[in-house]
């Protein structure tokens, strides 16, 4: 059974991209909108579940009035929006043409006659009151931008005569789903035309449009949003590190770390020949001076990022060797093998980790300097208490394999005067150091399926149902057979039933 059909709010990124594409790139965008809420890992899932608060509706009204005012005040934007010349202050026919054409683009489908009448009447009433065509039209445009048909993606489908429990997306719904997935914005004219012509109903027609979108640089921008959410990179804006323990920390370090990770992922994801699992083992990355210093490698010239190759005999490689992952999943004044292990379990392997039980003292013995304990020794407490052991056993041993990197991501070989032991076992595969941990993870049976799940959730706005599980596994298998290429994964998802049908609304 597919998941029930739901209304999906435009996320903030989608809203911003959409109004720019509809009205013009030079708009001043509203800054006062309700934040996205990430649920089960993704804002797109939150967008399918959360309601607009009363305050959000107020904010959207203010935003729509501002956007429509800007679009009609600017000659270029106005010319793109209005294809007729008003004959007088009140020109019902010209207003009707604008409502019809702008409405189709904004609502991602043609308007019904009632709908055209409704917003033409708004324009005509306003033009009459204000004795000005353009100021009057502004209210119709503002209305179209406040309508639920604009604010929600209505991917509701129509019952499949062959299988009444399934609902098939029509051309416009398919175009909307594809465009927001691949580009993070509203369908362009070419895609709407294909939707109207009915060509998206066929495999060949859908594939042709999907390939066109995925070949565009806009797909890279949309994918960046996916990686940013998947890896919690927005949290780097607020990276709290204790300066006395980690003097490398700075107000720019978090942004540098995010910059490295996003550049590395972009480079790898859109390299047609690359195996996306290399994200764990690649030594190709992008460094600026600050990160080069943190990593102890030669600094690039200038202030920006430069493509760099990390030493081939070093312990630092792949995502797990990057500051973003290492510093985010640590404390302000120490590492946290538990957090690093939890992140790997939950985000990279899609394994569920139970929460800490209530009424358990979770304090670890403090590290008292040279005479103290290593993190591995301190975490023994987790394993000594039965209430803690069951869950920590699935997180700590993985994270301990990365103890060569301190809480801000700098390399080290000793702690409190002792040589750090970075060996461990990941689900039956022994590793001796971070390099072997990366290899074990890359070859873990759940890594590719988990990555597929994440893309699926981001794209569809829900966690896969039991009925959709075979689809996820099939995509995963096909992608493996096809050399683990990122673009193949995106394309396979678009062509899968889960992208093209939905369940009855509940």
């Amino acid at each position, binding site marked *: 059974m597919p998941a029930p059909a739901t209304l999906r709010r435009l996320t903030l990124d989608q809203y911003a991209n959409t109004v720019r594409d509809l009205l013009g790139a030079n708009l001043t965008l509203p800054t006062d909108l309700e934040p996205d809420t990430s649920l*089960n890992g993704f804002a797109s899932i939150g967008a399918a579940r959360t*309601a607009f608060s009363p305050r959000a509706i107020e904010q959207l009204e203010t935003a729509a009035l501002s956007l429509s005012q800007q679009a009609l005040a600017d000659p270029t934007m106005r010319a793109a929006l209005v294809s007729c010349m008003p004959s007088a202050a009140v020109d019902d026919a010209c207003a009707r043409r604008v409502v019809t054409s702008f409405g189709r683009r904004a609502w991602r489908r043609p308007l019904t006659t009632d709908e055209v009448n409704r917003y033409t009447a708004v324009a005509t009433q306003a033009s009459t*009151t*204000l004795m000005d065509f353009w100021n009057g039209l502004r209210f119709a445009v503002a209305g179209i931008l406040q309508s639920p048909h604009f604010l929600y993606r*209505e991917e509701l489908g129509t019952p499949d005569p062959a299988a009444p429990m399934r609902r098939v997306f029509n051309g416009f719904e398919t175009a909307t789903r594809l465009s927001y997935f691949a580009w993070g914005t509203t369908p362009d004219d070419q895609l709407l035309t294909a939707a109207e012509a009915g060509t998206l109903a066929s495999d060949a027609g859908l594939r042709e449009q999907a390939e066109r979108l995925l070949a565009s640089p806009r797909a890279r921008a949309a994918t960046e949003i996916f990686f940013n959410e998947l890896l919690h990179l927005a949290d780097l804006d607020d990276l709290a590190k204790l300066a006395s323990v980690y003097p490398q920390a700075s107000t720019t370090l978090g942004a540098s770390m995010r910059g490295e990770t996003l550049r590395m992922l972009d480079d790898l994801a859109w390299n047609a020949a690359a195996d996306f699992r290399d994200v764990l083992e690649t030594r190709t990355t992008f460094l600026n001076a600050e990160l080069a210093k943190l990593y102890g490698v030669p600094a690039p010239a200038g202030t920006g990022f430069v493509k760099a190759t990390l030493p081939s005999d070093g312990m630092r490689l792949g995502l797990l060797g990057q500051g973003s992952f290492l510093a985010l999943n640590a404390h302000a004044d120490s590492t946290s093998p538990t957090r690093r292990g939890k992140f790997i379990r939950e985000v990279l392997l899609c394994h569920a980790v139970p929460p800490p039980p209530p009424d358990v003292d979770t304090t670890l013995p403090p590290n008292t300097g040279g005479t103290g304990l290593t993190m591995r020794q301190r975490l023994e407490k987790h394993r000594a208490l039965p209430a803690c052991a069951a869950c920590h056993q699935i997180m700590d041993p993985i994270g301990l394999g990365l103890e060569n990197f301190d809480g801000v991501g700098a390399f080290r070989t000793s702690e409190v005067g002792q040589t750090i032991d970075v060996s461990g076992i990941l689900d039956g595969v022994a590793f001796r150091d971070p390099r072997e941990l990366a290899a074990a993870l890359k070859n873990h049976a759940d890594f590719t399926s988990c990555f597929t799940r994440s893309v699926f959730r981001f794209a569809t706005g829900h966690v896969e149902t039991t009925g959709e599980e075979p689809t996820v596994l099939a995509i995963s298998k096909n992608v493996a057979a096809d050399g683990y290429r990122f673009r193949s994964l995106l394309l396979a998802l678009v062509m899968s039933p889960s992208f093209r049908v939905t369940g009855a609304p509940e």
Partner: protein
Amino acid sequence: MTNRRVMKPTMLSRRHLLRGVMGGTVIAIGLPPLEAMFNSHGTAYAGGAQIPKRLGIFFWGNGVKVDRWVPAATGAAWTPSPALEPLATLKDYVSVVSGMNIKTGNERGHHAGCVGILSGAPMVSQPPGNAGYASTFSKPTIDQVAAAAIGTGTRFRSLEVGVSRRVVTGEGTTLRYLSHNGPDNFNAPEYDPVKVFDRLFGTGFVPPTSTPPPVDPTLALRKSVLDAVSADVADLKNRIGATDRTRLDQHLTSIRSIENRLTTMPPPPPTAGSCKLPTKPGAITDTSSKEAIEERMKAMSDLIAMAFACDQTRVFSMMFSGSVGSTVFWQVNVTSGHHDLTHNEAGNQPQVHETTVFTMKQFATLLAALKAIPEGAGNLLDNCAILASSDVSDGLAHSINNYPILIAGKAGGALKYPGVHYKSSGENTSMVLFSLLKAVGLPLTEFGTAGGRVTTSCTAIEV
């Protein structure tokens, strides 16, 4: 509410003008209270209507050190514990309730306490298999329960503000937002005092003793836009399932409340009581290492107080710091995030305790701002009922027993003054929520859901 329709004869022409534009829409009037409206005792408006009662919530994350929180003495003779020392000068306005337990279950540390203490109902876990965890509320928080009864006649139904931005954003709505209307349905706090000012006292607010603003014809046009949007919402409702219908019902209600505001006639300039246009706050800048918590707290407190004085709203919630939040309390020399601190500090956690003292100092700022504004024969705090609490009892152990609860304000005489320390032996925290809702006038006979349901309130703090 007839007392609030007092208007000068000169208003008629404006009214007729507006009515003409609106095509005959009935116009309601939302006036700030005038000094002339209070009776000679100052306890009620002239004409007999009571001074409004207000409800508020002050919430902080990660609990307290219980041994330094609970005052030793009970009853009216209580004296501040070390944690409550900052409230010493406001002690008469504060009651302490200790020893109560959250009885909606402790399904997940922090989450369960948040939901229990703010709504008296169990949390909803959203752990679909192997995806990232999320949780939400099952029922509205008490600010929204109150707002449905006492918040519908003011320009704003309720006001939500936040102070520290370092909240958890990745585990669902529970940890991220305080005020909820229902599951996955929240009222996000505003962290920028400038934006709060603009919303409350910007366009649409008519300051006392000002010249009446000219009627803006675009207000009626905005209403016609919203009518069209409402028709779209109604169309769409026919095509969707029950869950989405709930979302769209709220969408419609929200549109209607904007329409009401648009068609509510701007009031004539009043002769000022305590209501006046406050000074616009300056921009507050946080740095990566230091959040400007005290500055934001002061600005937000003053805005809430003036919003009450001008009767722009009667309900607020303030998320001072987040549940599991990573606020760095640099003001008391803490260098790590608050949640980390509660789990990592050794011994009896003196630093954690210091963050609680600091938090109570900020709560005192809020209470002092309300107390400073006269209303009737007393002050605003006399007419407030404020809940102050957290997401756990002790953050270290995620306990939800012996919960830290403060009640502030007299609620127009419904709550004990001077305040008391009521030491319970394990009663349900929902009893306090029940008391607060009763104190602001809700005619309830029970409150809460499942383990949080109670049929008796906490009479020890009531008059």
